[in-house]
């Protein structure tokens, strides 16, 4: 991270924390375990991240949802990296990514709005499982990038 710059809303440290927290919520929901203490924060941040990634994807598809996209494509780039790792790179990929991100966002919003403690519908369980995999992979990737140890290394100068 550059010392002489703005720390972006979706910087690597916050984004890694968000991914771990959402992964934890989804895991506990799918396993019928009590939700974690940070469930509200996790859902808010997860929805915010997916919204920015989804809006970025809509712009790439040529179908922006509003005229006020203030973010960057970084959340989309991270999400696309995860998507490509699990699925072949194919025609219409960005549309599929946007649809997938939207389904994850809808699920998180439903959990937040209805204060869901347990998933009942088969479709929700299925989405929760794939969303869990997504956030699990995202957390792994972002934690790797956020590791303070790899920021510098011993070397001859």
């Amino acid at each position: 991270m550059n010392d002489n710059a703005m720390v972006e809303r979706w910087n690597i440290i916050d984004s890694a924390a968000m991914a771990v927290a959402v992964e934890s919520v989804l895991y506990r929901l799918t396993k019928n375990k009590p939700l974690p203490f940070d469930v509200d924060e996790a859902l808010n941040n997860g929805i915010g991240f997916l919204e920015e990634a989804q809006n970025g994807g809509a712009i790439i598809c040529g179908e922006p949802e509003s005229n006020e996209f203030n973010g960057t494509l970084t959340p989309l780039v991270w999400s696309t990296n995860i998507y490509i790792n699990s699925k072949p790179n194919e025609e219409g990929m960005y549309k599929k990514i946007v649809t997938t991100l939207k389904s994850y966002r809808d699920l998180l919003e439903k959990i937040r709005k209805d204060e869901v403690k347990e998933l009942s519908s088969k479709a929700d369980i299925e989405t929760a499982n794939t969303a869990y995999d997504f956030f699990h992979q995202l957390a792994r990737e972002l934690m790797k990038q956020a590791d303070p140890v790899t920021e510098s290394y011993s070397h001859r100068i």
Partner: protein
Amino acid sequence: MSNSSLTRIQHQIRFELHSFRNELKKLSVPNYPSKTGNAIIEMLAGKLDKYEETLSKIMGDNEYEDENIVKQSHQKLITKIHNPLVKQDAKFLNWLSKAQTKRVPWSFVHCAEELFQQIIPNHNLLIYCENQYNYGICWSESKTLAPYPYYILSLPGLHRTNILWHTLVGHEIFHPRCNEFIDKYNQKVLINIKNTVTANYRSISSNEDSSDLFSDSEKKERIDNITNITHLAWRRAMEELLSDMACVEIFGPSAILAMKAFSACSPKNDIPEPDNNFYPSWQYRFEIVWDNFIKDKLSKLDDVYSEIRNQDIVKCFKEDMLENECLVEKKEGEHLINKHKLAKIAYKEVKTLISDAVNFVKDNTINISKWYDKKTLNQIPTLVGRLENGIPPNEAIIEINEQEGVYKTHPAAIPAILISGWMYETYWQEKFDSDERVMTYKTLSRLILKACEDIQTIEKIQQCQS
């Protein structure tokens, strides 16, 4: 992931929090040139309390029989506490130790803070000297990381007392305002960039061109990646150019000369790319600010020139200005951009926004004292004269009558102090090596620093009198 690893990391983090608290205690002992240093120490102490609370919650939320939950708790300790503490908060320990009074140009700190308050009201600035050759400002839009109410401005440590260069704080302080402008045009520009990048990508793919524009992995339909990089180049260009514009709008020729002096050892005309953090080239930056902020206003100095007693100073200053004019005339910066595909796409968007950017900067510096204000211009000849005689250029005396106790004076405006300093500097550069009797550069800097210190005192005396 075993339970013992979770316990171990918990102990490590508790130790880190304890050590951090100790460091803060040590940092609360020395003096800081303003209240910001101690306020930040207090803010960080509060943050450590919150980390301790979060740590207890994570440990209390754990289910030791489920390996995945143990692993997630372990990751939460890292991502919610360890990483922000060691990667972000720890920077404050460095910043604070280098922000102590003895380690910064303390006479100038209040001037920079005042300018900061005018541009970013209701926030606080910490100024420190870093052992790196650059000016910088750091702030955060994160909802969890430091430093929310604080902006951290760094000056190059080896040039701590080189006050004339510190004209460039005008550039740094405007950086956080740039987002307002960028957000307004962000989506439109992003769509334009995406469309052009896609069109370029298709033409390259169809020609099977092995251009280095897209690497192999990027060729796999990664329009998002290339658009993101090009968009970043646009953002960075707008940030730097808007900040340059603000600095030149306020300080005028002083800003140009400070930019020129500071960039003297850097390449002048490089393509913006990831390796140089997408900095626009110095040449391009000079061209933009000269054309939009100096060219039409330089004649305002004509009346000032005739009032300056030592015409050698005027001659040297005019020669430097002429040199700058020649430097930008050929538009080499603009020409180079057009030779690089991605830079060309990004800077096409920059170019269309220049006149809006000029208006944005003018609107947002409207209440700030500027170099071309009549009051500022009137002070310059007096201040140059004071400097030449080894007196700090701190005030423009209107009337003195010792018998009647009359002492009417105006504290010098910062743009006037700096422009008189730079005028003398151009003369100094010419005369110093020719063994003529001129002061050292250190003395010149000390006189100007003293002037910055004095204006606060003069203002306070005037407030008491009125």
